[in-house]
C-alpha cells in the first residue's frame, strides 16, 4: 500500500511538475509574445517618430526656404505650389505679418485671417526662430471651423530683410491616418501625437480628445525623459501594449498602442490548441499510470492474499502441529505403502514405541492376534472403497499389554488424486471398556438388590396374606380338637370346619401361585393384558391398602401389550407402594389412588395418581435416580423407581414421567403425584 501511495504521490508530483513546466513555458511564451508585440510597438513608434521628425524637418526647411522668398510674391507662389505638390501632409502655407494677420496663403480663403500664436508651444528661450506647434483645430483650414476635418497649425517666426514674419503651415491630420492605415489595421493599433505640454495633437481613434489634455501615465512621462518607453498599460480599463517615443528636435511624443486582447487572441488560440494537446497527453499518461497502478494493485493484492493464505496455512499447520503433539489421541501416519513415517507423542504414550522404533515399519507389529484375518481384510476392503474405517481394535503395547483403541483410518490423496498417506487416529478406550464392565456389574447388582427388596416385600405380603387363613385353619382345627376333647364334636360341625380349613388352604395355595408367577424368571417376552397385571398387583398388595384405609379407583381400558409380565407387575407394585407410603405419611382420611388406563394413538397410557399432596418440586427430577429415597433406611432402598424406569424404557420401550396433578373425588379436589406411563401396543 505504501508503494502505491509512493507511486501515486510520485505520479502526482510528476504531473504537477509537468503542469508547472507547461504553465512556466506557456507563461514564458506569453511573455515572449508580449515582448514581441512590445518590440513591434517600439519599432512602429520608432518608425513613426523618424517619419514625423522627417515631416517636421521638411516643414522647417520649407519655412527656411520661404523666408528668403517672402518679398517675391510670384516666386513664393511657385515655391508654395511646388511644396504642396511634393508634401501632401501640408494643407496650407501661410505667411503672417508682424501683426499676425495672414498676408499670404496657399488657400486664398485664409487671407486676412488674424491668428493668435501666443499659445503655440514651445515658447522660445534664446532664439525665436524655432518651430512651434499650435493646438489641433477643428476645420478644413484656418478659415473654417465647421467641418469634421482637423489640422495642426505649425509656425516659425522668421526674420527677413523686409521685417519679421511668421510662417504658418497647417498639417493634414488625415494624412497620418491614411499613411499608416496598414499598420493601424493589422495590429489593431492606435497612433497618437502629443505635444510636450500634454495636449493631444493627433489620434487615429480619439477625435474628441484632439486639442485637449491627455491623461498622463508613467510610460508617457518616462518617454519625455528617456526618449523611449514601453510596456503593458491599462487605459480606460482596457489592456494595451504601449510604446512612447519622443522626437529629438520637436516637442512631440509619438505613442503607439496595440490592443492586447486582439493581438494576443491568435496566439491564445494557438496556445489553446497546445494546451488541449498537452492536456490530452497528460490524461493519456494519467490513464496509463492508473492502468499500471491498478495492475500493480491487483498483483499486489494477489500476493497479499497468497501471503495471508500462506500465513493462515502456516498458522493452521502450527495449530495442527500443536494438536498433533498434544492430543491424547494417538496419531500414526504411513506412506502409501503403509510404512510408518511419523507418530505423535500420544502414540508413544499409548503403545510404548518411540518414533525411531516405528519409522519405516508396517503397523501390523502392533497386532494382538485377538482379531482374525477377516477382520483386517474387511478393514482394508472398506478403506480401499470408502477411504475410511472406524472401529475398535485390540492392539498390544511394547510391554505386551493389550489395549483397546477406537481407531479411525483415513486415506490422504495428493493433488493428482493418488494415495499419499494413511492416517490413523486412535483413542485408547481400554479404561472405558473396563468402566463399561464395571457398570454392567453394578447394574446386575442393583437388579439383584431390587429383587431382594421385592422378595422381602413379598414375604411380608405372603405373611400378611397367610395370617388370616392360617388363623382360620388354626381356629377351625383347634375348634375340632376342642370339640373332640370335650366330646362336643359332631360330623356336621367337623365337616363345616374342615370345609373352612380346606377353603383357607385353597386360598393359601392360590396365594402361592400368585407369588410364584411373580418370581418366575421371564425367559421370553410375552403378550399379556394390562388388566391382568393390575389385578395381580392388587392381589399381592390388597391387604396393605385395605388396612390403611386407602381407596383405589380403577378406570381401565384393557389392552394387550408385549414384555415381561412379572416386571410389569413389579412396576405397578413399586408405584402403588410409593403411593401407599406417601398416603401413609399424610394426616387426613381422604386417601385415594386412581388408576387410569386408556388408549392414546399407538400407546397404552397408564396414569397412577394419588392424593398425597404431590412430590416436592426440588426432588421431582431426581425420583428415578438410583438410591434416591425420602424414606427411612428401614423402609426404602431407593432403587424401586429406578428399576421401574429401567423396565419401562429399556424392556418395554415406553416412557415414564412423574408430575404433580389434581384428582377430583366426590366433588373434592386433591393434590398428588401422577406417574404417567406410555407403552406401545402389541
Amino acid at each position: 500500500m505504501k508503494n502505491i501511495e509512493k507511486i501515486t504521490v510520485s505520479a502526482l508530483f510528476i504531473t504537477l511538475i509537468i503542469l508547472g513546466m507547461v504553465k512556466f513555458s506557456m507563461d514564458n511564451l506569453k511573455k515572449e509574445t508580449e515582448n514581441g508585440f512590445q518590440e513591434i510597438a517600439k519599432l512602429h513608434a520608432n518608425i513613426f517618430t523618424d517619419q514625423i521628425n522627417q515631416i517636421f524637418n521638411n516643414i522647417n526647411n520649407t519655412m527656411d526656404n520661404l523666408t528668403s522668398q517672402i518679398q517675391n510674391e510670384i516666386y513664393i507662389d511657385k515655391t508654395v505650389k511646388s511644396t504642396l505638390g511634393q508634401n501632401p501632409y501640408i494643407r496650407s502655407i501661410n505667411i503672417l505679418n508682424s501683426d499676425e494677420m495672414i498676408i499670404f496663403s496657399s488657400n486664398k480663403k485664409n487671407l486676412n485671417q488674424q491668428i493668435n500664436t501666443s499659445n503655440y508651444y514651445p515658447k522660445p528661450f534664446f532664439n525665436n526662430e524655432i518651430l512651434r506647434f499650435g493646438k489641433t483645430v477643428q476645420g478644413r483650414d484656418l478659415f473654417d471651423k465647421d467641418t469634421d476635418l482637423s489640422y495642426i497649425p505649425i509656425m516659425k517666426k522668421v526674420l527677413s530683410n523686409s521685417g519679421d514674419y511668421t510662417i504658418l503651415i497647417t498639417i493634414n491630420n488625415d494624412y497620418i491616418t491614411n499613411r499608416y492605415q496598414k499598420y493601424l489595421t493589422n495590429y489593431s493599433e492606435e497612433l497618437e501625437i502629443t505635444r510636450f505640454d500634454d495636449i493631444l495633437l493627433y489620434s487615429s481613434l480619439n477625435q474628441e480628445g484632439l486639442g485637449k489634455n491627455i491623461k498622463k501615465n508613467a510610460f508617457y512621462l518616462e518617454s519625455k525623459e528617456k526618449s523611449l518607453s514601453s510596456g503593458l498599460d491599462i487605459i480606460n480599463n482596457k489592456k494595451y501594449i504601449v510604446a512612447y517615443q519622443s522626437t529629438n528636435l520637436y516637442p512631440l511624443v509619438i505613442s503607439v498602442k496595440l490592443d492586447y486582447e486582439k493581438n494576443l487572441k491568435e496566439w491564445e488560440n494557438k496556445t489553446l490548441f497546445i494546451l488541449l494537446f498537452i492536456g490530452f497527453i497528460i490524461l493519456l499518461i494519467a490513464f496509463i499510470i492508473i492502468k499500471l497502478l491498478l495492475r500493480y494493485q491487483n498483483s499486489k493484492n494477489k500476493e497479499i492474499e497468497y501471503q495471508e493464505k500462506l500465513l493462515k496455512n502456516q498458522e493452521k499447520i502450527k495449530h495442527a502441529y500443536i494438536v498433533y503433539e498434544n492430543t491424547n489421541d494417538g496419531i500414526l501416519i504411513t506412506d502409501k505403502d503403509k510404512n510408518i513415517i511419523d507418530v505423535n507423542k500420544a502414540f508413544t504414550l499409548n503403545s510404548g514405541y518411540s518414533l525411531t522404533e516405528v519409522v519405516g515399519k508396517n503397523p501390523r507389529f502392533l497386532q494382538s492376534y485377538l482379531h482374525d484375518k477377516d477382520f483386517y481384510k474387511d478393514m482394508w476392503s472398506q478403506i480401499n472403497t470408502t477411504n475410511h474405517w472406524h472401529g475398535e481394535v485390540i492392539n498390544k503395547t511394547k510391554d505386551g499389554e493389550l489395549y483397546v483403541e477406537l481407531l479411525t483410518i483415513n486415506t490422504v490423496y495428493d493433488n493428482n488424486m493418488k494415495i499419499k498417506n494413511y492416517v490413523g487416529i486412535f483413542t485408547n478406550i481400554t479404561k472405558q471398556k473396563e468402566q463399561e464392565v464395571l457398570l454392567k456389574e453394578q447394574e446386575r447388582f442393583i437388579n439383584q438388590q431390587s429383587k431382594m427388596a421385592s422378595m422381602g416385600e413379598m414375604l411380608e405380603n405372603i405373611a400378611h396374606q397367610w395370617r388370616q387363613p392360617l388363623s382360620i385353619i388354626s381356629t377351625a382345627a383347634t375348634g375340632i380338637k376342642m370339640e373332640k376333647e370335650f366330646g362336643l364334636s359332631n360330623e356336621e360341625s367337623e365337616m363345616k370346619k374342615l370345609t373352612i380349613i380346606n377353603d383357607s388352604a385353597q386360598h393359601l395355595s392360590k396365594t402361592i401361585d400368585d407369588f410364584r408367577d411373580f418370581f418366575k424368571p421371564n425367559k421370553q417376552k410375552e403378550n399379556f393384558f394390562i388388566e391382568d397385571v393390575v389385578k395381580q398387583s392388587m392381589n399381592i398388595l390388597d391387604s396393605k391398602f385395605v388396612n390403611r384405609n386407602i381407596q383405589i379407583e380403577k378406570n381401565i381400558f384393557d389392552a394387550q401389550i408385549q414384555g415381561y409380565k412379572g416386571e410389569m407387575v413389579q412396576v405397578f407394585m413399586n408405584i402403588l407402594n410409593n403411593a401407599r407410603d406417601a398416603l401413609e405419611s399424610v394426616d387426613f382420611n381422604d386417601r385415594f389412588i386412581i388408576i387410569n388406563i386408556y388408549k392414546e394413538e399407538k400407546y397404552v397410557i397408564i396414569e397412577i395418581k394419588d392424593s398425597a399432596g404431590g412430590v416436592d418440586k426440588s426432588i421431582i427430577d431426581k425420583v428415578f435416580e438410583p438410591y434416591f429415597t425420602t424414606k427411612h433406611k428401614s423402609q426404602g432402598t431407593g432403587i424401586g423407581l429406578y428399576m421401574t424406569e429401567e423396565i419401562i424404557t429399556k424392556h418395554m420401550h415406553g416412557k415414564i414421567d412423574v408430575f404433580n396433578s389434581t384428582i377430583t373425588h366426590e366433588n373434592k379436589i386433591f393434590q398428588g403425584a401422577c406417574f404417567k406411563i406410555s407403552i406401545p401396543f402389541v
Partner: protein
Amino acid sequence: MTFFKIVVTFLVLYGTSLHAQNDKLDNIIEANKLKVCVWPNYYGISYLDHRTQKLVGIDSDLAKELAKDLKVNLEFVPSSFATLTSDVTNDKCDIAMFAIGNTKLRREKMRFTTPHLSSDIYAITTKSNRKIKNWDDIDKKGIVVAVAKGTYHEPVMKKKLQHAKLLVVNSYKAREQEVQAGRADVFMTDYPFGKRMLATTDWAKLILPKTVYHMTPYAWAMDYGNDKFFNRVEKFVSDIKKDGRLLNLARKNGLEPIVNLK
C-alpha cells in the same frame, strides 16, 4: 555757463569714474540682474532642450541658486567655448557657468572659481565602427579624431595624438555629425556630454580610457578684478558644497560621479 558745463562734465566723469570703480557685485545688485553665460548645448550642464525651450543642467540650476542667494534676477546669456573668453571679458555676462575646464590657456584670460566638477576625457564612436574597439585603437594611423573648437579637448588632443588625425570642428553638433557621417571615427568629449550621448542616441558607443587620461577640473569663469564678486561667488561655491545643494543637483543631473565637494 562754461563753468557750469565744466562742473557738470566733471561730475559726470567723476560719477562715471566712481561707478567704474564699483565692483561687479555692486552693479549686479544695483541692476538687480545677474547675467550668466551658458553654452546651451552642454548636456547635463546647461542644455537648452529645444523641445521645451528650457535650460536643464547642473550649472544652469546652480546659476538659479546663485541669483537666489544674491537676491537678484537671473538672465541667461547664450555663449559657447569658442566665444567664452570674449563673452566674459567683454562683459556680455557677469560669469560663465557651464563647467569650464580650468586650463592654463584660459586662466591667462579669465579668473576661475574653485572647481565643483572634474572630468576625464572620453571618446564616442559609432557602434558600427570596426576600427575602434578600445582606447588604444584611437591613436592609430588613419583614425580621424574630432574635437570642438575652443574646448580644452582641442589643445589636449593636439598634444597627445601621435598617429591619428585631429579634426577641429566649429559647431557643437559638428563633432557628432562628423562621426555619424563617417568623416571622423571618434570624437572626444567629457563625462556629461558622453553620458547624454549614450542616453539619447542609438548609435553612440562610449570608449573609456584605461587609466586617467587627462583629468580636468571644471569651474566657472569670470573676468579678472571684481574681487568682491569673485569672493562672493567663492563663498557661494563653498556654501553649495557644504549645504548639499551641489550634491543634490549633481545627483539630479546624473553627474554625481564627477562632483567635486572639496
